[in-house]
């Protein structure tokens, strides 16, 4: 199921290249406001995954939500979103207008909530695939569901019958045996798995014993976690045959290629997009070998 740097076929979707966005790290609606139509003309991802949707609207965690770590970022965003209704009314029409297939990431606090979300998107033609977030380290159940193979299997058995669309399961890296969870997901009907989500971390407010982040703990991403991500992707690839979306600290085409060599079908770019909103374009170009270093622009 791995593919070279060419045009990949992912769960039946034909994509222009293997680089997509990491869930929750690129708000295409906001980016459109910041960069105008140029964003659509040079859209950097071959598929777009929207930020996690929950049944009820969420404000997210109180600020501060960010802490810079050596070669990385720790965040405690807390899944702010308009809720299912708000997403269907406000976000979906705008995201459907993007020039690439749309993957919707959903999260429920119980199996029934996940079923509600999957059921709501099942009939939507605008939606090419669904992703189940069972790994967000910021919300109690995410940690628990995604860390246990049995829990993941029961969830999949519950929601798999509700849709024909590809169902991707995002794995948590904070588990003793990630490949076992991946295998459980595959055996219960997952079409693909994605990893890694952020690693649980913490920072203190300088000079105090209080946590810096409004949400207490946070999740670490960026280059600091890349070697850890590569190890997990490689072990999961040895355990499953469904396609893998790999991510964690990808900054260059060479990094993306390493994840493909380790067994991934697609590679997602997250934190690097914060340093350059068009980073994924450069990465896709480097991957396909067509990239020349730019001169000074000024």
């Amino acid at each position, binding site marked *: 199921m791995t593919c070279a740097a060419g045009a990949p076929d992912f769960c039946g979707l034909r994509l222009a290249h293997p680089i997509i966005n990491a869930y929750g790290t690129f708000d295409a609606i906001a980016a459109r406001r*910041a960069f105008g139509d140029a964003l659509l003309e040079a859209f950097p991802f071959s598929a777009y995954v929207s930020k996690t949707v929950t049944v009820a609207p969420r404000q997210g965690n*109180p600020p*501060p939500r960010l*802490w810079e770590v050596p070669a990385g970022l720790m965040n405690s965003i807390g899944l702010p979103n308009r809720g299912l209704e708000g997403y269907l009314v406000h976000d979906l029409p*705008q995201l459907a207008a993007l020039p690439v297939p749309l993957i919707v990431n959903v999260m429920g606090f119980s199996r029934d909530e996940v079923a509600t979300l999957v059921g709501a998107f099942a009939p939507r033609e605008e939606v090419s695939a669904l992703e189940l977030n069972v790994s967000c380290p910021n919300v109690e159940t995410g940690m628990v569901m995604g860390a246990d193979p049995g829990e993941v299997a029961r969830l999949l058995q519950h929601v798999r019958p509700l849709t024909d669309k590809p169902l991707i399961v995002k794995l948590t890296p904070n588990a003793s045996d990630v490949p076992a969870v991946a295998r459980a997901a595959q055996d219960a009907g997952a079409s693909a798995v994605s990893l890694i989500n952020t690693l649980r971390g913490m920072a203190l407010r300088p000079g105090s014993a209080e946590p810096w982040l409004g949400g207490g703990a946070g999740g670490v991403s960026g280059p600091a976690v890349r070697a850890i991500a590569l190890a997990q992707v490689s072990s999961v690839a040895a355990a499953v045959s469904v396609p893998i979306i790999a991510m964690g600290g990808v900054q260059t085409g060479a990094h993306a290629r390493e994840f493909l060599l380790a067994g991934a079908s697609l590679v997602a770019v997250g934190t690097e997009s*914060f340093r350059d909103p068009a980073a994924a374009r450069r990465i896709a170009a480097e991957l396909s070998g067509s990239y020349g270093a*730019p001169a000074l622009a000024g």
Partner: protein
Amino acid sequence: MTETLADRVVAPFGARVVPVLERAEHGAYLVLTCADRHGPEPEPGQFYMLMAARRWGGGAGERPYLPRAFSVLRAPAGTLQFLLEAVGPATRRLCELDAGDGLSIVGPLGRGFRPPRDGRRPVLCGGGVGIAPLALWQDVLGPGTPALLGFRDAAHAAGSALLRDARVACDDGSHGHHGLVTELLAAELDAGAPAEVFACGPPPMLEAVRALCAQHGAPCQLALESGMACGYGACFGCVVPTTRGLIRLCLEGPVLEGSELGPEAFAMPGHGS
């Protein structure tokens, strides 16, 4: 996309590396001028995300890693100017840059100042490095626009030369009024015709400006700070509490209406210095 509002100048998509043209010290501050021949002209109050093109990282505590937000100070003919104060690993690295070095920029970003309402006369009020966005705004509003600026000491008060006819308050009495800039502002609001205040500075100063303007029934537009990772709405990290709920400062601000803010907007760690 229905939410695309023509309420701002939009940035080119992607980071561009431009050369630094000049560095000029102003007391405790540095003004960095870079070329940006192909970028749009920024509006007063907009900002850019900056990184050194080389060796961004490996500073104190192995940081910086992410870019940082900086208000545009002025933008004369195909160039951009930023006002920097070295407070941590990123600003220290930027303060090392010299002519010819590469600067990675994304911007202009965010919503800047809106014109004063109801024919009110504009009053500018800045504190410390927060005077930066007021310079370009004073150029637009007209050189006569009063600028009240507060600083810690003489080395910082040197920055007041960057605005026209600034009236200065200094904590240590070394320069102008011995005391807080909000004392100058209170006098100014009492004195003239109905005013609208445009302010930028440390959170306690902004909170004092907000409270003072509310007392005087004067609208105010406040340029806030908040820890940012991306600057373009991608990370949801820079939120501040408002009457509309938590909003992304990089997208809805950095300039917000005083009327939609309460003291809690200025009481968070990491929001401003």
